[in-house]
């Protein structure tokens, strides 16, 4: 009986020691990682995928190109925590993706279907241009069409790690807490897309994905 008591107490002690070790590890890891969180909420509203189709079936659109204005609206909401952290700020970037896992060359649109003999070349990613704009022109690239070159290329809309520029200033690089409901001109970004294929590429159906990535600054 005494021996059993010793075994039990030893097990409890060991379990308790292990528990303490885990508790300490968890505590430090959580404290260390959660130290990066300055904001209470960071989100794009809505964050559902937008699909747009550009159909080129006449010479006007081939030669002159097609623009889809406001193909998407990136509406941002960034809120402070209950205890306000003055370091709460955010960045917004866009990343192009052509599904390289499917065998797409790095600099081309993903081919979904090809028409005709396919004796020409597939359109390069540079054929798609993206324009970002809002009323306060808060992005340095506001109103100017930008082009990606290769899969994974990044274009900054609001560059990461900038000093905090508070909302309501209607200035360049506004990245403080706020949302599109109270500061629409700074927290809403209209996205325009332009494609001008001219007469150089294989006819077919092609696809590209642009990912808008909102993240709080560490």
């Amino acid at each position: 009986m005494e021996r059993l008591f010793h075994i039990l107490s030893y097990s409890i002690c060991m379990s308790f020691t292990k528990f303490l070790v885990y508790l300490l590890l968890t505590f430090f890891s959580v404290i260390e990682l959660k130290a990066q969180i300055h904001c209470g909420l960071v989100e794009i509203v809505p964050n559902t995928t937008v699909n747009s189709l550009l159909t080129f079936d006449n010479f006007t659109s081939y030669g002159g190109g097609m623009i889809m204005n406001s193909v998407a609206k990136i509406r941002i909401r960034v809120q402070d925590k209950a205890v306000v952290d003055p370091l709460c700020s955010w960045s917004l970037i866009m990343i192009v993706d052509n599904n390289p896992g499917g065998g797409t060359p790095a600099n081309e649109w993903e081919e979904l279907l090809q028409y005709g003999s396919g004796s020409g070349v597939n359109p390069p990613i540079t054929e798609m241009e993206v324009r970002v704009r809002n009323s306060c022109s808060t992005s340095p690239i506001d109103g100017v069409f930008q082009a990606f070159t290769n899969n994974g290329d990044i274009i900054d809309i609001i560059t990461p790690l900038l000093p905090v520029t508070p909302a309501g200033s209607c200035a360049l690089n506004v990245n403080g807490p706020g949302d599109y409901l109270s500061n629409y001109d700074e927290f809403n970004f209209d996205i325009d897309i332009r494609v001008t294929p001219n007469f150089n590429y294989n006819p077919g159906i092609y696809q590209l994905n642009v990912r808008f990535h909102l993240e709080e600054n560490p």
Partner: protein
Amino acid sequence: MKKLSYLCGALLMFGATANAQLIDEKDVTVTMDLQPVLQLDMSTPDQIEFVFDEINEYYAGITKYGATQLRVSSTVSWDLYAVGRSTGTNGPEYWDQQLEYGNNNPNAIPNLPLSLLELRQAQANNGAAAAGGTYPDYSAAFSPSNTPSGQNSLYVNGGTSTPPSTNDKYIGGHAGTSGIPGDDFLPGGSYLTQTGITSNYFYVIDYRILPGLPAIFPMAAQADGTIAAANPLNDIESANAVGNYAEPGVYTMYVQYILLEDQ
């Protein structure tokens, strides 16, 4: 127990990572549908008439300058060719005889080859560098009436619209899909965006018919236009017998212009 401990640790670490910087994302997927467009605009009379009622017209032939203008717009690499066709009343490679004049002299042949019609394009074919024949296009000047030549003779292929081979004539581009611009195709483009007095997307076509005397149509040739013992001209005498000539009458045929993606 040890494994469970590791699992608990991993879960705790994962939980901690998920609670790091706040992130949200939104995707915009752009799909582009490039539909092929090939457009051939043609300005030409509904009917081009050649009336031979003077001796000098038989000797010198009748030429219709600039009777047809072809304008090309294409979003893909392309070839353009002309082919002689008829409804086949007298056979697939002959003009349709609508009416005959005079008596039925056995030497008067009603089967006039479609290839007796000659074409001349004002703008040379700049997409035929890899052509294998003697005459890659119809850009040569009409040859004198006393020098029979098939260099402008219209391409005919058994009354079908089958594309010419590498030895035959194209107006723009040529047979083959080398992928090298200028070798066997002309790249996509449109006459609308071209400047200057010449363009690979704009062709002016002249027509000539030269019956000769006797009316044997000496310029009619085989598809590749060359003349050899094994490949003689296609005139009335060569195709039939010495002493034969074209039966007087009214004949019709048509020229089909075909614009297609590089073949």
